[in-house]
């Protein structure tokens, strides 16, 4: 049984700079979203325990062919990707349609893992949409995955409680960042990454055309931060100001 992980290529947020509240994209390298790396780590751990292959599916601009090496170095065994410069800015509906078609190419797919939200726009829709398209059960907010025969036992961490659910495979599992600490790929894994099997298609080669874009981003601005720049001369003064601002004391 193979495990599929869907990963989204996003700008490396650590290297992103904000000017006039707008992100400056020039020269920012591409990588995978943080939670997608947790999803991959979960898949690799399961593979190490139960066997099978970890298949990474992804859709994005042509640089994906390079970015996918990160996933291969971190334990992915092969990849199926749509790499097309016309697919650099997909919305959730488009992504879901494409990913569902890519996942259908995996014959013995027991489990499909998604991160809860992508590193860039975090719409948090793609996993659910794909489950719907593939007519598979889905479980979200997952912090632990145990394979038990034909079933999955999943721990969901909710705001006030922890829920354990069981679901038959194949299923879509949507994980949060808390479930593991992704491994650091070793140098030799890095060098082997580019040699792992990959299938690459373009938008024209999709069996069914990708859904029409339904969403238009009008603006994408960093929140405004207004520093108060208050200078204080004593602890008493600090406490007084914190009280006035409502950070300490009072109700």
């Amino acid at each position, binding site marked *: 049984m193979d495990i599929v992980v869907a990963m989204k290529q996003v700008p490396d947020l650590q290297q992103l700079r904000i000017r006039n509240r707008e992100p400056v994209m020039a020269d920012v*390298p591409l990588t995978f979203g943080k939670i997608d790396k947790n999803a991959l780590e979960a898949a690799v751990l399961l593979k190490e325990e139960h066997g099978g292959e970890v298949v990474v599916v992804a859709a994005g601009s042509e640089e994906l062919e*390079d*970015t996918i*090496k*990160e996933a291969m*170095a971190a334990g992915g065994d092969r990849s199926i990707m749509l790499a097309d410069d016309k697919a650099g800015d997909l919305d959730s509906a488009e992504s879901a349609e494409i990913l569902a078609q890519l996942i259908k190419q995996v014959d013995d797919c027991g489990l499909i893992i998604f991160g809860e939200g992508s590193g860039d726009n975090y719409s948090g829709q793609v996993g659910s949409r794909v489950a719907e398209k593939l007519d598979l059960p889905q479980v979200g907010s997952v912090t632990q995955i145990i394979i038990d025969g034909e079933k999955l036992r999943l721990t969901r961490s909710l705001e006030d409680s922890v829920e354990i659910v069981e679901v038959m495979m194949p299923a879509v599992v949507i994980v949060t960042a808390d479930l593991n600490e992704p491994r*650091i*790929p*070793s*140098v*030799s894994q*890095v*060098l082997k*990454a*580019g040699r792992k099997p990959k299938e690459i298609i373009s938008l024209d080669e999709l069996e069914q055309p990708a859904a029409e874009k339904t969403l238009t981003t009008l603006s994408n601005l960093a929140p405004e931060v207004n520093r108060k*720049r208050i*200078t204080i001369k004593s602890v008493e003064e600090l406490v007084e100001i914190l009280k006035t601002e409502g950070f300490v004391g009072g109700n």
Partner: protein
Amino acid sequence: MNFDLTKEQSMIQQTAREFAEKSVAPLVEQIEASHQIPLELFKEAADLGLLAIPLPEEYGGSDAGYDGYVLALEQIGRFSASLSMAIMAHVLGLSMINTFANDEQKQMSLPPGCRGEHITSFAFTEPGTGSDPKQLTSTARREGDYYILNGTKRFITNAAYPGYMGVVFKEAESGKLTTFLIDKKAEGYSTSEPLEKIAMNGGQLLDLYFNDCKVPAANMIGQVGEGFYHLQAGIGYGKLGISAFCLGLAQAGFDAGMEYATQKMHRGTPIGVKFQAIQLMIAEMYEKLEAARLVLYKAATNANKNSRNNPAVFARDCAAAKDIVSHTAREIVGICMDIHSSYGLMKDYKVERLYREAVMMPQIESPSHIQKIIVANSILADYK
């Protein structure tokens, strides 16, 4: 001319950066206070392939070239000069063995070195000299199938860790430089206590004593009289390593300088925004860092082919890079100190340690004058 890193190069850089940020950074103070690098840290680095980046896969290395090595060690150098120094001496030793030793010697020493079970050393310096091969006094005297080694080696990195070391002696009969591969557990070999230095005390430095130390003649690397080539190539590899972590040190100086310049306020405005004097220092740090980085990356890339095929050019490139980058580190950290002013002298500020470390850099792996002599001789050779 393409200045972009390949995906693999940037991933190697990222692997080293993550290791440095997650595993090294939290231990820096402990390493300096205890004068020791925890052995688990070497193990972790080895598991990631970071202790043998340029070594061939067949001996357990990663085969990622000296460019990959330099990119990785730069990242570790941003946090710990002590650990970087140990890795640099280890890779120097392994690289020298890989270039010159026979297969049996390589099988014996490279795989445990690549796995991090052994930490390798290379010893040339003596109390009398660290730059002049003619003044070596340690001797290797043949006795049947063995050599008897006598003498003192000074300032040797990694000498207390288990593993092998390449040591250059004068072969007694011929008076010629000759290198031996010696197990650091050999009988007749002992060390001093770690020497106290101005900084980088985590990276231990010891004196070595050879007192009728008996090693099989089969442990000789190459032939009698080839020690100078081992030295020349070995310190070439060493200079690439030092330059790499000096670049990391310079980057750390730049980062600490920028942090202070943008956070220290003068009447409500950060000093870096308010004062042109600080802005000039920022520009100077940036320019120096850029120049040093280009020189080093080029030397490292060329080292992949030249270290074996063109040793004279390799020696020149490494000497020039080391001279430029080690001084750059000292200059940038000096500017960073000036941006901090008195605060920089306080132990609470990172630049205090960086400054003590940066002072050391031009002196290690032969001093600046010697680098310039190597560079000048290489240029003058074309004018003969």
